[in-house]
C-alpha cells in the first residue's frame, strides 16, 4: 500500500521549472531517498511535500488524502513529522521541553477551544497532570534511544548542546509525534564521519522497526546504504529511480553528477604557467 503518493508535481518560479512533472511514491515501511546535484530541485520538492511551498501543478496524497489543502501545522496531525536541514531546535528550552513539543499534535491539552485550554492550563487538574507525566516518561524512552547522548542532558538548554546532539534532539522531537511518515532533510549535514556513522545506525534502527522514511541527503554512500529505493533528480526532473545499486550505475545519473563526456572539447594551447608581474598586466 502506498502511503505518500506524489503525482506529476510541478513548481515553476517565474516560468523556470524548479520541479518538473515529478512522480513517485513511498510505501509503508519503506525508506526512499531523493538525491541530485546542486540546483536539481530537491529542496523545492521537500518544501512542497512539507507544505512550506505550494505546487503549480500536481498532487501529493498521504493515505489517499490530499496534503495540498493542509496548513503547515496540520501535517503533524495527519502523522507526518519532519526535521530541518540545519537542525532547528528551541535553543532556550530544555532538551526535555524540546522533545515534549513534539507530542503537541497528539496531546489532549490543546484539543478543545483556546479558552478551555487557557482554563485547563490555569487549573491543571488531574487529567492534565497525568497526561504530562505520561508524556515525560515517553520522552525519556525516546531520549534513551540515543544511549547516553541526551538522557543525562535532558534538563540542559538546547543551545548549549553540540551540533550533533542538537540534530538528535530534533529527531527525538519528530519521533515524539509518533509519526507514520518521517521526513529527514539532510540529517548528517555538517557532521563528522563518526557522527554520520551513528546517525546512519540510528536511521537503520528506525527502519528496522518499520518506520516509513523519506530522506534527502547529500552523502551518497549513506543514501546507498540506507535506502530501499532512490529517486534521482536533475534540473527539476526525475531522471532515475530504483534500487541503490541500479541508480548508482545508471549512465544518466553519472552524467548528471559529473557532466557530459560525450563531445570532448579541444584544449586550446596555452602558454605554460609563467611568472607574472605583481600589477597583473592581464586585460
Amino acid at each position, binding site marked *: 500500500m502506498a502511503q505518500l503518493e506524489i503525482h506529476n508535481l510541478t513548481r515553476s518560479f517565474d516560468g523556470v521549472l524548479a520541479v518538473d512533472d515529478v512522480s513517485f511514491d513511498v510505501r509503508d515501511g519503506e525508506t526512499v531517498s531523493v538525491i541530485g546535484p546542486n540546483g536539481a530541485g530537491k529542496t523545492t520538492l521537500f518544501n512542497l511535500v*512539507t507544505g*512550506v511551498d505550494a505546487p503549480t501543478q500536481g498532487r501529493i496524497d498521504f493515505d489517499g488524502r490530499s496534503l495540498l489543502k493542509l*496548513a*503547515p*501545522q*496540520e*501535517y*503533524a*496531525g495527519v502523522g507526518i*513529522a*519532519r526535521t*530541518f536541514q540545519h537542525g*532547528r*531546535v*528551541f*535553543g*532556550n*528550552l530544555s532538551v526535555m*521541553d524540546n522533545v*515534549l*513539543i*513534539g507530542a*503537541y*499534535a497528539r*496531546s489532549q*491539552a*490543546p484539543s478543545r477551544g*483556546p479558552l478551555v*485550554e*487557557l482554563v*485547563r*492550563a*490555569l487549573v*491543571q487538574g488531574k487529567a*492534565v497532570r497525568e497526561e*504530562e507525566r505520561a508524556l515525560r516518561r515517553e520522552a525519556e524512552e525516546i531520549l534513551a534511544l540515543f544511549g547516553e547522548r541526551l538522557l543525562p542532558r535532558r534538563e540542559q*538548554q538546547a*543551545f*548549549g548542546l553540540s551540533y550533533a546532539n542538537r540534530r538528535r534532539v*530534533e529527531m527525538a*522531537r519528530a519521533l515524539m*509525534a509518533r509519526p507514520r511518515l518521517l521526513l529527514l532533510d539532510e540529517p548528517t549535514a555538517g557532521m563528522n564521519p563518526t557522527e554520520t556513522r551513528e546517525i546512519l545506525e540510528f536511521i537503520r534502527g528506525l527502519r528496522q522497526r518499520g518506520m516509513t522514511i523519506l530522506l534527502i541527503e547529500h552523502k551518497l554512500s549513506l543514501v546507498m546504504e540506507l535506502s530501499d529505493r532512490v529517486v534521482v533528480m536533475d534540473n527539476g526532473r526525475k531522471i532515475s529511480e530504483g534500487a541503490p545499486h541500479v541508480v548508482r550505475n545508471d549512465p544518466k545519473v553519472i552524467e548528471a553528477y559529473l557532466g557530459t563526456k560525450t563531445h570532448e572539447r579541444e584544449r586550446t594551447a596555452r602558454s605554460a604557467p609563467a611568472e607574472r608581474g605583481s600589477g597583473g598586466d592581464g586585460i
Partner: protein
Amino acid sequence: MDPTLRTFIDQTINGLAIGNVYALTAVGLALIFGVANLINFAHGSVYMIGAYVGWVCVTWLGWPLPASFAAVAVVCGALGVALERFGLQGLHRKARIAPLLATIGISFALDQATQLLFTANPQSFPNPLPAERIALGGVSIGAIDVLIAVVGVSTAGILFGFLRFTQLGWALRATAQDRDAAQQMGVDVEGVNRATFGIAGVLGGLAGALVGLYFATVYPTMSFQAGIKGFAANLLGGLGNVPGSIVGGVVLGLVESYGVAAFGATYRNLFAFAILIGVLVVRPAGLFSRRRTLPPEPMTGTFVPNSRPVRVPRAVVIGGIAVALCFPVLVSDPYLLQILTNAWLLAMVALSLTLVTGTAGQSSLGQAGFMAIGAYASALLSLRAGLPFEIALIAGSLIAAVLGTLLVLPAFRLRAHYVAIATLGIGEMVNQVIANWDGLTNGVLGLTNIPPPSLFGIEMVTPRATYWYSLALLLLAALLQLRLLRSHLGRTWRAIREDDVAAQSAGVGLNRYKALAFAVSAGMAGMAGAFSGHMYSYINHETFASSTSILALTMAILGGMGNMVGAVVGAVLLTALPEVFRGLVDYRYLVYGVVLLLLVRFRPQGLLGTV
C-alpha cells in the same frame, strides 16, 4: 473663483508642503532600511534635533536661513554617523531584537537630552521669511510653501545625482542590492552603512527644521510623531524604496490635509496610524511592489539571546515578597509608598509585556494602549453604570483582553520588528480614538472624578492602602502567570518564540497561541491601567502614552526576557532608582535610554537572563 475649489486648492498646497517634509523623512528611513536592513526608531529624534538646531541658529544666533540649514545638515549628518558608529555597529551579529532596541534607547536618550537643554515647553520659531503671500489666480502661496518646495525638490535632485553619478552613491546602491557581492567588489560596506546614516541624518534634520518653520514651533516630543509618519510614508511606498517613499510622503501629506479639512484638526495623527496599520496588514510590500509580502527580516541570530537564567532561590523570592508586604509598616513616608505603588503597577505592565514579548516572542510596543482600554472601560463602568470598583476592574481587564486581542489580530501574520511597529501604531491609535470619541470618552477633556479603588465597599485611599492593594494585584497576576508558564501553554509559547517554523511542524497553530498570549497580556496591562485610573481619579488620552510601553519594554529587558522575577526587579529598579537618587528624576528617560543601549550591547540577556 468658486470658494469650494479655492479651499480645495489651499488644502492641496498644504498637503503638498507637509507631504514634502514627510517624504524627506521617509527617504532617510528608506535608505537605512535598504542598506542596513533596519527600521530606525531614532530617526524621529534626529528630525527633532534638526528642528532645534534650526531654531537655535535662526532665533538665538540670528543666522540667515541658508547658513542655518547648512548647520542643520552638518549637525544632523554627524549625529547620524555617530548613531551608527556608537549605537549600532556590531549589533547585527547579536539577537534579532537588538538593533531595534538600540534605536529605541538612542531615541529616548536624544529626546530627553533635548528636553533637559531646552525644557519640555514648545519654543516659538518665528518665520524670518517675508509674510506676503504670492497670489496665483485667487489662490495664495506663502513663502514657506515655496521654501519647502525648493528644499524638497532640490534635495531629491541632489540625492538622485548622488546615487546615480558618484562612486559612493553606486557603492550605496550596490550594498543595498547585495551586500556580499558589493564586498566582493571591494566596497567597505561598514563605511557605506555609516555614510547612509549620515545622509539620512541630513535629510531628517532638514525635514525637522522645515516643519519647525512651517508650524512656527519646536518641541521635544515632535520626534515621535515624525518617526511614525516617516515610517508610514516609507511603508506606503515600499520599505527601502527611495522614489516610492517620496510618493508615499506626498500621499500621506495630502490625505492628512484633506482629512483634517473634513473631520477636524484632532484627527490629523489618526490618518498616519490608520495608513500604517492598513498597509502593514493589507499590502505590506507597499503600493508599488508586485510582491505581496514584506521583505524578509534579517534572520541572523535568534529572537532573544541564548542564556542560562540566574536561579533565584525560592527563599529570596519569598523574603522579597515579605519585605514588600511589611514595608508600609516600617516606613510611613507617603511619597516613598506612592513611588513603590507606581512600581508595582508598572511591574504588572512589565510582567504582561514579558509574557507576550519575552515568552511568546511577539515584540509588543502597544501595552499602553491596552492600559488605556482597561482604564477607560473600568472608569466608565463605575462612572456611568455605577459598578463597584472590583467588578469594574475585572470587567475593564476583560474588555482590554478581548478588545486588545481583536486589535492586534490583523498583525498576527507579521514577524519581529513589524509586530513592534504595528503594536506601537495600535497603541497610539487607541489614544487617538479616545481623544476623538467625545460621546463615549469625553474626548480630550478626559474623565474626572473616577471613584477611588475600594474593597467590599471600603475605599482604599491612603498611601498604605493603595500600596497593599496594588501589591496584592501584582502578586495575583504573577501567580496566574507563573501557573501558565509552568503548563504546556508556557512551553508552547516559548517554542513559538524560539522558532515558529519548527513549532508549526510539531502541529502548533501560531495564531491561536499569539491570541492567547496577547489576551492574557492585554488583560493584565488593562488591569494595571484600570487601577491607575481609579487611583489618579483623572485620565485622558495622554495618560497612557507610548513612552509607557517602551518603559515597560526596558524593564522587561533589564530583568531578562520572559523572566518574571526579572520583570519585577526591572520595574522596581527603573521606577525607584531615579527617585532614590533624587537628582536623577529629571534625567529619568535619559537613564532609561542609556540603560537600554548598554544592556543591548553588554548584557543582552538582562540581569537575570532569558527564561
